[in-house]
């Protein structure tokens, strides 16, 4: 694990992507197959489950450090990362022990079965033996929020270099939740006979946001224009009579969507469809909150299935009759998709075609985009008719062009320190609007949207205008007004203000406004009526 800890440190210590790639390549060159596989899994975020609850970890660490529990908590608030806090408070290591990374991960995976004293014995021994870098990595493996500071694209790049393979082929092989213990480098990356990887999705092709004018894209006739829906991006795979549904975040969601179960037989083998999974009724999508209430459930009741019936709005075909057709122009892929969806009588009607919108000029698209909410979508997707289906986020072939967000002016009332890069800095804010009684009621939390300079300035102000502290949260004097942007607004019984926002973030700091000029709760209710009417 020493070498892996060193890799972690090397990646952590540079902001330059070339150095990061080089560090990974170096690591792979000097490692055995098994260690490499486990490392790759960690690098791309296939992390082990948390084997011990965090309260116990905190207690054990505080005990070893000889500090009271409250002082550990105070320290943790400042550091903003549990594994780092533990690493820092523990006494210096006793030996320079080193264990193979795969062994450590497997022992940790077996930990949940052990009694508490045995768990403690194992973890404490490692804490005291491992040097600071390893101790941090080891604890990160336990706390579960393991992020290496490299994007998947960089890992793919390094692997492609190491294995002398094409990058997009590597990206494809890395897809899906493979288990390091069950693989070798050979089994993961070599060409394989059919039927061994039926579950494996293709890397999703992602669009950048269109920044400039659409005229820069050339003739409108070269483009497909579709509604951009607010559902879950998914990949639907039927191979050898089996169905697999993957989300963009690479969660296997097949069991969450019983609506689609019949497709294993209805679709021909060797079919992979890309589309948006979304609750749908009476010819139009339902608000995203409807989806949220069902996605978190382990067991779905009949009622939930009825209240939030799902469809997939299909927009691309990646594999047809067992052949990868991603290099074909979109127009060709789409024609097959249209034929496919028209030809099979999908009794349940769960597969819909993403309709293309007919416009003659870009300015018509602009008008539609501005009113997108009225058409139950969040904007448009622009896809070049001759575009191949790319890997990851690429510029050129596809663009997303979203409608302008809704905005409300809110008053900053609470601040909480952030995590990671924002640790020990007040970066997580709660905003309020005025209710009828003249009190401020919180309606949104937002973490992003300010520049580092603004964050520093606000942090300084918060520290000097704190009314009260509750753990990591401070209430502050109502003084600053911020324009909050969001994509959707719904009534909610779970929120104090009675409203739930979708993707709230700070649009700008309204230094020109006083708190009296902030919006009111009745403004929010009117907005709900207007948007969802």
């Amino acid at each position, binding site marked *: 694990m020493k070498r892996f800890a060193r890799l972690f440190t090397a990646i*952590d*210590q*540079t*902001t*330059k992507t070339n150095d990061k790639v080089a560090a990974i390549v170096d690591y792979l060159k000097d490692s055995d197959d098994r260690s490499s596989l486990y490392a790759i899994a960690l690098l791309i975020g296939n992390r082990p489950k948390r084997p011990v609850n965090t309260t116990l970890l905190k207690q054990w660490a505080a005990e070893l*450090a000889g*500090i*009271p529990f*409250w*002082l*550990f908590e*105070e*320290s943790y608030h*400042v*550091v*903003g*990362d549990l594994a*780092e*806090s533990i690493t*820092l*408070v523990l006494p210096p290591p006793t030996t320079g022990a080193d264990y193979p990374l795969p062994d450590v991960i497997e022992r940790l995976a077996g930990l949940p079965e052990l009694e508490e004293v045995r768990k403690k014995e194992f973890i404490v021994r490692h804490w005291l033996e491992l040097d600071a870098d390893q101790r941090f990595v080891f604890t990160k493996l336990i706390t579960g929020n393991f992020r290496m500071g490299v994007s998947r694209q960089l890992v793919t790049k390094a692997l492609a270099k190491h294995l002398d393979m094409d990058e997009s082929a590597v990206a494809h092989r890395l897809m899906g939740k493979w288990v390091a213990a069950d693989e070798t480098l050979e089994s993961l990356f070599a060409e394989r006979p059919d039927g061994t990887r039926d579950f494996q999705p293709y890397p999703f092709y992602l669009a950048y946001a269109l920044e400039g004018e659409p005229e820069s894209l050339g003739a409108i006739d070269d483009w497909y224009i579709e509604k951009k829906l607010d559902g879950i991006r998914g990949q639907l795979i039927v191979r050898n009579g089996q169905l697999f549904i993957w989300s963009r975040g690479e969660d296997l969601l097949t069991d969450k969507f019983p609506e689609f179960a019949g497709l294993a037989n209805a679709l021909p083998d060797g079919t992979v469809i890309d589309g948006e999974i979304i609750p749908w009724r009476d010819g139009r999508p339902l608000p995203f909150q409807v989806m949220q209430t069902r996605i978190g459930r382990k067991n779905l009741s009949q009622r939930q299935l009825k209240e939030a019936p799902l469809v997939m709005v299909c927009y691309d075909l990646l594999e047809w009759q067992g052949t990868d057709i991603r290099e074909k122009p979109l127009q060709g892929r789409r024609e097959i998709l249209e034929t496919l969806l028209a030809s099979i009588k999908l009794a349940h009607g769960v597969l819909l075609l993403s309709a293309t919108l007919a416009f003659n000029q870009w300015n018509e698209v602009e008008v539609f985009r501005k009113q997108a909410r009225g058409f139950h979508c969040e904007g448009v997707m622009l896809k070049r008719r001759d575009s191949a289906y790319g890997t990851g986020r690429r510029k050129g072939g596809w663009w997303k062009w979203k409608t302008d967000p809704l905005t409300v002016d809110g008053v900053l009332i609470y601040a909480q320190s952030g*995590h*990671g*890069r*924002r*640790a*020990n*800095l007040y970066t997580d804010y709660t905003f309020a609007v005025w209710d009828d009684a003249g009190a401020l009621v919180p309606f949104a939390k937002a973490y992003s949207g300010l520049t*580092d300079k603004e964050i520093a300035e606000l942090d*300084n102000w918060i*520290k*000097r205008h704190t009314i009260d502290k509750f753990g990591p949260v401070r209430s502050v004097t109502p003084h600053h007004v911020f324009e909050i942007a969001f994509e959707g607004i719904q009534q909610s019984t779970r929120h104090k203000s009675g409203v739930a926002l979708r993707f709230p973030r700070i649009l700008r700091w309204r230094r020109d406004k006083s708190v009296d000029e902030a919006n009111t709760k009745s403004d929010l209710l009117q907005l709900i009526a207007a948007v969802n009417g």
Partner: protein
Amino acid sequence: MLLEFTERGIFCPQADVYIDPWKPVAHAVITHGHSDHARWGMGRYLCHRDTEPILRLRLGPDIVCQPVDYKETVIVNGVSISLHPAGHIIGSAQVRLEYKGEVWVVSGDYKLATDGLSQPYEPVRCHHFVTESTFGLPIYRFPEPLQVFADMNAWWAANAAEGYNTVLLGYALGKSQAILQHLDPAIGPVFLHGAVANVNAALATIGKDFRGERITAETDRNAVKGAAIVAPPSALGSPWLRKMVPYRIAMCSGWMQLRGARRRKGVDRGFVLSDHCDWDQLNRAVAATGADQVYVTHGYEGPFARWLREQHGIQATEVHLQGTETTEDEA
């Protein structure tokens, strides 16, 4: 009370002097030359001999300044005032005040670790001790400075071998000189940002000389190749810095103990190098004074005061002084 915590600063009514006041007063005792302690507009300044040139550099040559040596006693209206080494930076001092057998010590900023430059900290026995707590949490336990300097030199050598310049960011007064003192001249040339060169020039007047050449418009860019360049944190993101390309850059500060702080700076390396006490040093220092009343300022006042009360049975109180949120560029 011999000392009071007022909105102008720490005040001794009996002697009518303020310690590190932040608003204009007639008589000020200054612990050291950092700008959050040595402010403009005081009628008279009393400070250590080595702090005087720094005050004149920063506050103007015309200030009325009474320099004293460590342990030299000045008696004001019956109050014996003396300065004692604080180990923070060159000329830094703790202030000891004694009146009718009662002894107070105001530590100012201080550290127990040695930097090879400032006169090492000496504990002073007292009844009442005012301590900072910039790093008053158990997550702050700093590595041995000599090890940090060794790492720094190794990093510089590696950068030079790869054709990069090495930019080291540290506060212009104190940290920069500590870095300069420990850079290995065998690795390559050393250059200075103007702010660091100005402080060095002021320190040269009291016989403290440091290596390094000031970078000016005339400096030959080829001469800078593979060099170490010492600059204040404010250089980060400035046009001046762009001229140092190609470079790797490191921040030198106690805050670099935390990954988040380092990543926020967007630097390649963070060297944990502080002119303040870490957790262990604070605890040792408080114990060594023998004080039974401790006033905790500047930093994690709440947690450190509570820790002293619960673990050491000391009557510790938190004191919130105005305008004293330390920024990450200092310390």
